[in-house]
């Protein structure tokens, strides 16, 4: 299948991109607003198109543990869910991180806490970037701001997941998942053969030949000194990721007095807010983190020396703003404007907040 231009929902685009990426297996459980991912996959008969396994599990718990099992064999494995379902997956995600297995987890975030709402949210930022499950671990977190990026981040996600043997989360939201946009789909990639997998991933549980020691996938280490050595190995890996994998988009930052920081769908809204503010003569720039972990700390730190202040705009009660404050480290004011519960910030409200909180203050 060649490159192709289509009009698709974000949830459909990520599913189609997964088939074209040559993903070996998807395990999931329906939850709004991302059920189209598994619905689309099932309707596409990927077992016929590429041999990809798609299985509806009995729960998110089971789904993430199926991911753990299949990822242990060196396969490209994926799951998707939305906020309450991601909470259920957190146990398994911790084990996957602790066993250093690659996989891609999609969270189409909705408002919370608890059952919350089925409307969009960005209130799982802490859960995605600071842990969520137990123990010292990090996910690599990608934040798509368009249907195109939903599709593109599948490939980026697997590249990073296998490069670092680390789970990757695509942190989307109900807007990106549900909205339709033009998307350019990549050509079909071949799935790796079992022989290619054995050669590429010598750590995988593919069955022990006489030529090697047995492979054990586990996150258990009862000797404290050995567990600490493993933790330090993880810390080193996360530092490497922070040094090498930061991605962000910077708009109008050269002459900016004020910087909006926003990711995902809210970054799109902030682009409009930025235009409105500039029409009023306020020099506003935008930083859109594309990786939330690693967070684009260096560029924000650099900008802190020349701008007058920052405002984080989120569909949350204020989560990413803490990372911005850490980057700015008290040098300039860092304000926050957010909507919660599935409410979406409007560009004009963002401009008013900017004027009241940063410029007027």
């Amino acid at each position, binding site marked *: 299948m060649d490159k192709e231009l289509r009009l698709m929902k974000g949830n459909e685009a990520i599913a189609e991109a997964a088939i074209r990426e040559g993903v*070996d*297996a998807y*395990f999931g459980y329906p939850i709004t607003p991302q059920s189209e991912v598994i619905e689309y996959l099932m309707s596409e008969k990927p077992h016929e198109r590429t041999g990809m*396994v798609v*299985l509806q*599990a*009995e*729960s998110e*718990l*089971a*789904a993430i*543990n*199926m*991911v*753990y*099992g*299949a*990822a*242990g*064999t060196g*396969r490209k*494995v994926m799951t998707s869910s939305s906020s309450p379902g991601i909470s259920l997956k957190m*146990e*398994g995600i911790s*084990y996957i991180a602790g*066993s250093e297995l690659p996989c891609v987890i999609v969270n189409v975030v909705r408002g919370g806490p608890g059952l919350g709402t089925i409307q969009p949210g960005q209130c799982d930022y802490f859960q995605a970037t600071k842990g969520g499950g137990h123990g010292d671990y990090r996910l690599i977190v990608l934040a798509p701001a368009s249907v195109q990026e939903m599709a593109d981040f599948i490939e980026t996600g697997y590249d990073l997941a296998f490069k670092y043997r680390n789970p990757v989360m695509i942190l989307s939201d109900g807007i990106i998942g549900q909205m339709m946009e033009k998307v350019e789909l990549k050509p079909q990639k071949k799935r790796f053969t*079992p022989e290619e997998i054995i050669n590429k991933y010598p750590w995988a*549980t*593919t*069955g*022990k*030949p*006489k030529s090697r020691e*047995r*492979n*054990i*996938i*586990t*996150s*258990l280490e009862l000797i404290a000194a050995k567990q600490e050595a493993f933790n330090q190995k993880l810390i080193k890996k996360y530092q490497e990721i922070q040094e090498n994998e930061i991605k962000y988009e910077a708009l109008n930052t050269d002459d900016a007095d004020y910087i909006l920081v926003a990711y995902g769908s809210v970054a799109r809204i902030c682009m409009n807010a930025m235009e409105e503010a500039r029409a009023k003569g306020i020099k506003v720039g935008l930083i859109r983190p594309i990786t939330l972990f690693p967070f684009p700390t260096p560029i924000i730190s650099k900008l802190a020396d020349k701008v007058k202040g920052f405002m984080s705009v989120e569909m949350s009660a204020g989560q990413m703003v803490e990372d911005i404050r850490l980057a700015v480290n008290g040098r300039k004011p860092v304000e926050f404007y957010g909507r919660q519960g599935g409410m979406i910030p409007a560009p004009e409200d963002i401009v008013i907040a900017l004027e009241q909180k940063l410029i007027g203050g």
Partner: protein
Amino acid sequence: MAEITLQDIIKEENLVYSRTKVMTPNELHYCPGCGHGTAHRLIAEVIEEMGIQEQTVGVTPVGCSVLMYNYMDIDMQEAAHGRAPAVATGIKRVMPDKYVFTYQGDGDLAAIGTAETIHSCNRGENICIFFINNGIYGMTGGQMAPTTLEGMASSTSPFGRDVSMMGNPIKMTELVAQLAGTYFVTRHSVHTPRNVRRAKKAIRQAFENQKAGKGVSFVEIVSNCNSGWKMPPVKANEWMEENMFPFYKLGDIKVDGKLVEK
């Protein structure tokens, strides 16, 4: 006549029994008298005899046998508590030509992992599930399990299991036998040579079923926990015969996909 010395006996031609090559030389950490070592060995022997060491991936549970991967010379994955059948599902679905088994205790399989057990059995995943039931949580120090018998003392039912308050012991094996996806469901023990032979035959049958693509083979082994039960090994085996077997009856429950008529 000259006396026979030990050196005369230790000769290759006299060797009639040895460690199976599918087990590592690592010393087992289990308590003396525990059935885990025998159960591990039977699985390893069957894997060796079928010549499937290179094609087998095992899934270990959380519980006393969490470190089973130290003893089996095959690729293994360690599952979170109760999730082994889901992990095995993931492995088997992407490598349908491999042999995949789980090895789980009663807390793992019949309490925290009930949903994973029932649904993997109901889907008819082509895997073997080996279920070691000793009616107690051994690793955490002898707490009440879902399979603890009525009146049986544990550290969380110190005056005996009061079913009016703590619920009833669960017969998971009879339960999964009702599901369309299970092909072979049977209950055994490994406390006498005769029972060991029967258990081994069942384990072999389970792997043969997987080879033939028949769905779930579910082998329960009723075992002792002399540490948790606070009994010397011989007494624990007697207690098991007198108390566990009347409730958890040994024998086949489902063969070739059909419930066995009693």
